[in-house]
């Protein structure tokens, strides 16, 4: 089994190295093969790990890690000098200073630096399968990009190195190692966002850099306080073991801040929105399916310690606010990828909130959301890539005629949006569980619970409006043409989208099974107590929460199936008539409605900053 794990860590590194120099004839099959192998490895690891597996690395690796840390920070400093960015410079200097201080004063214990438990294997599955699919998509996407051949190989190599880094992040127990891998993903994000090398990309890359570095500083500060307070080893396991200790809240709060920044919660959401200028596989990989999922991952890791603390209450308040604020901001966007980015931030807020509440059912809800959001958002972003390359569309207001010229793409996008919104898709079940369990929270902390339920339910309504607005653009037809001809987008694009579509639809069919055999065990491992999933009559019980299956089943036929059928149904023997335009014969082009949230953004950011300050304050008290 250790063999599989080593494969998960080293295979991406090696493949990345090969891709840097190999010609296209080798790199294409290599990418497809390694994606398959990685997915299989992740699956095997998931099946074989039931108890947490700890392992350590030799001492010289620790020194290599420290060296790599320093090298990376020096690189950031160089970037600061090159791009003349004061913020990046300050962050890098602070990080360097902090790191060097810690390295000097830390007791170099022979702790076990890596831990792979059910949560890690859960993330392995998500990371490797989704990244594999995106890598195959990238094979064609990057070919059509306007840059040198070496840059294209570099992109693919960087993609695989990033997969390796992600695999390492979710298995790191030692916080210093975790810091390195965390910052490696920041580095990857920086390189990816700035890939196109135009002014906007570089600026957004620098913004992403300093904001994520702030997260790194938070981790370093957490390490500092662990050492200072004398808890012993700087590992997650040790931190959780000291859950009731004096002053534990401060490291927890700092680690949560790192998670919140990585998850682009307000006021640090600018980097994620700016990251949308990067090539679409980057948006799909980093900024929806994998890298930003580090945020709920950290919170889930910490949830046994965070549960019921004031820190958790502030996090719940913040994420509730972010959920509704980003849902409202999403209504103001026209650029399709930005709409997806805003809704990603909103759902991340929900995931973090569920992790922070920490009861068995909410952890199941968080895991359900993490997985299904990852799959659906990946599908939507890859579709955005297809729109960009095949239809040359970036703004959603240009998607006026897409329903007729691209029926398959419209179908996939509609399914993608509906899978985030409607029953019986997983994301809806996750949201449903969230609202029901927030009710449980509200019985103890009435005011907070009430406010958060309102935010979540209200945000859910706004998000529904958003999705129906976009689906409305896709469903528009003249009705002149009855025959449907699915467009051809090319083998790589079509194959990857078919696979994701299959995953989405299979997850619907297998949801009760997935809940029993996949989510519940992981949640039990995270929470420490068993989560029981059972079916009784027409209800599915997850812990104590009841999911009424009969209304859900009927709702499934009434809603997603209705919309899909509506796109393709043809009543053959009914007469057709033109639209009423007071009898005019002019052709119109149609767009949609938008809100301008410019005046509200400063208030949102201010509220976010207040929450962050509150987070620190409650940790210090």
């Amino acid at each position, binding site marked *: 089994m250790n063999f599989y794990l080593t494969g998960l860590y080293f295979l991406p590194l090696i493949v990345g190295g090969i891709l840097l120099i190999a010609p296209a004839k080798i790199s294409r099959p290599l990418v497809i093969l390694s994606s398959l192998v990685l997915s299989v490895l992740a699956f095997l690891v998931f099946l074989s790990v039931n108890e947490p597996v700890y392992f350590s690395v030799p001492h010289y690796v620790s020194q290599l890690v420290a060296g790599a840390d320093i090298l990376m920070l020096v690189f950031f400093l160089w970037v600061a000098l090159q791009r003349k960015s004061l913020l990046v410079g300050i962050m890098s200097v602070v990080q360097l200073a902090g790191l060097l201080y810690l390295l000097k004063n830390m007791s170099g214990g022979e702790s076990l630096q890596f831990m792979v438990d059910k949560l890690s294997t859960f993330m392995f599955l998500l990371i490797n399968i989704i990244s594999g699919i995106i890598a195959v998509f990238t094979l064609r996407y990057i070919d059509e990009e306007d840059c040198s051949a070496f840059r294209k190989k570099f992109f693919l190599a960087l993609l695989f190195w990033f997969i390796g880094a992600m695999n390492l992040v979710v298995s790191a127990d030692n916080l210093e190692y975790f810091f390195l891998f965390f910052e490696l993903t920041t580095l990857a994000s920086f390189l990816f966002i700035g890939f196109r090398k135009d002014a906007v990309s570089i600026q957004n890359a620098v913004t992403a850099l300093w904001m994520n570095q702030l997260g790194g500083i938070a981790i370093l500060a957490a390490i500092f306080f662990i050492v200072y307070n004398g808890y012993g080893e700087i590992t997650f396991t040790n931190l959780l073991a000291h859950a009731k200790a004096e002053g534990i809240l401060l490291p927890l709060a700092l680690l949560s801040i790192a998670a919140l920044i990585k998850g682009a919660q307000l006021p640090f959401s600018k980097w994620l929105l700016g990251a949308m200028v990067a090539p679409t596989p980057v948006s799909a990989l980093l900024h929806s399916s994998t890298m930003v999922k580090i945020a709920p991952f950290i919170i889930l890791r910490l949830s046994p310690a965070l549960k019921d603390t004031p820190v958790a209450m502030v996090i719940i308040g913040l994420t509730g606010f972010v959920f509704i604020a980003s849902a409202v901001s999403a209504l103001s966007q026209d650029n399709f990828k930005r709409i997806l980015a805003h809704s990603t931030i909103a759902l991340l807020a929900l995931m973090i909130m569920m992790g922070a509440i920490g009861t068995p059912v909410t952890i199941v809800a968080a895991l359900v959301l993490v997985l299904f959001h990852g799959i659906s958002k990946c599908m939507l972003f890859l579709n955005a890539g297809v729109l960009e390359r095949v239809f040359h569309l970036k703004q959603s207001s240009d998607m006026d005629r897409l329903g007729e010229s691209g029926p398959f793409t419209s179908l996939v996008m509609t399914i993608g949006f509906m899978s985030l919104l409607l029953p019986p898709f997983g994301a809806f079940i996750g949201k449903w569980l969230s609202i029901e369990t927030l009710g449980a929270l509200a019985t103890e902390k009435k005011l907070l619970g009430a406010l958060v339920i309102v935010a979540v339910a209200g945000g859910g309504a706004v998000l529904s409006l958003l999705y129906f607005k976009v689906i409305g653009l896709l469903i528009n037809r003249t009705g002149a043409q009855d025959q449907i001809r699915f467009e051809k987008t090319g083998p790589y694009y079509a194959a990857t989208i078919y696979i994701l579509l299959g995953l989405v639809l299979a997850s619907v069919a297998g949801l009760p099974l997935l809940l029993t055999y996949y989510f519940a065990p992981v949640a039990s491992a995270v929470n420490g107590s068993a989560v029981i999933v059972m079916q009784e009559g027409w209800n599915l019980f997850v812990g104590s929460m009841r999911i009424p299956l009969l209304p859900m089943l009927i709702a499934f036929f009434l809603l997603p199936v209705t919309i899909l059928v509506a796109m393709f149904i043809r009543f053959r023997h009914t*007469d057709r*008539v*033109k639209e*009423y335009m*007071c*009898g*005019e*014969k002019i052709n119109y082009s149609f767009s949609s409605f938008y809100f301008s949230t410019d005046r509200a953004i400063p208030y949102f950011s201010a509220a976010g900053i207040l929450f962050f300050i509150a987070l620190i304050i409650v940790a210090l008290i």
Partner: protein
Amino acid sequence: MNLASYRKKSPWILHFNAGGCNGCDIEILACLGPKYDIERFGMINTGNPKQSDILLITGPVTKRTRERLVEIYAQMPEPKVVISCGACASTGGVFRGMYNCEGGVDQFIPVDVYVCGCGTRPEQIIDGVVQALGILEKKTKALEQSVKLKKEALQEEGQLNRRNIADEIKPLLT
């Protein structure tokens, strides 16, 4: 259950002004008001050809409105009746023979009831509508086949009759 008998109980009106002076329009609106109250017969003024049974037209048909008039008539589902309200809609009225008027609705669509008057009084309009309802009951809901208009095309001194304009232009082109 004879569904045709319910046509009389719920006739929905579409009112179209084909370029008139608004005199007859005001009278039609008066019918909807409290004094004459045609809603007690179930009549609603829908603005929408797809949901109406009765087409009330006022005004002599001008060049611009004739195309829209025919378009709206085509968008009404059968069974439908057409009532031309006022002298202008029936024959062109005061504006007959002018360069911009086509001389009445029946040059373009088949009319079932002519209501006379300049402006017609609400009582006359209601009387016309009630007679039209009797005609409506006998109509079918099959798609109206191509209809030969009963009225001859207007031939008058100086009147350019655009119904036959295609016949006049063709020899000029060949």
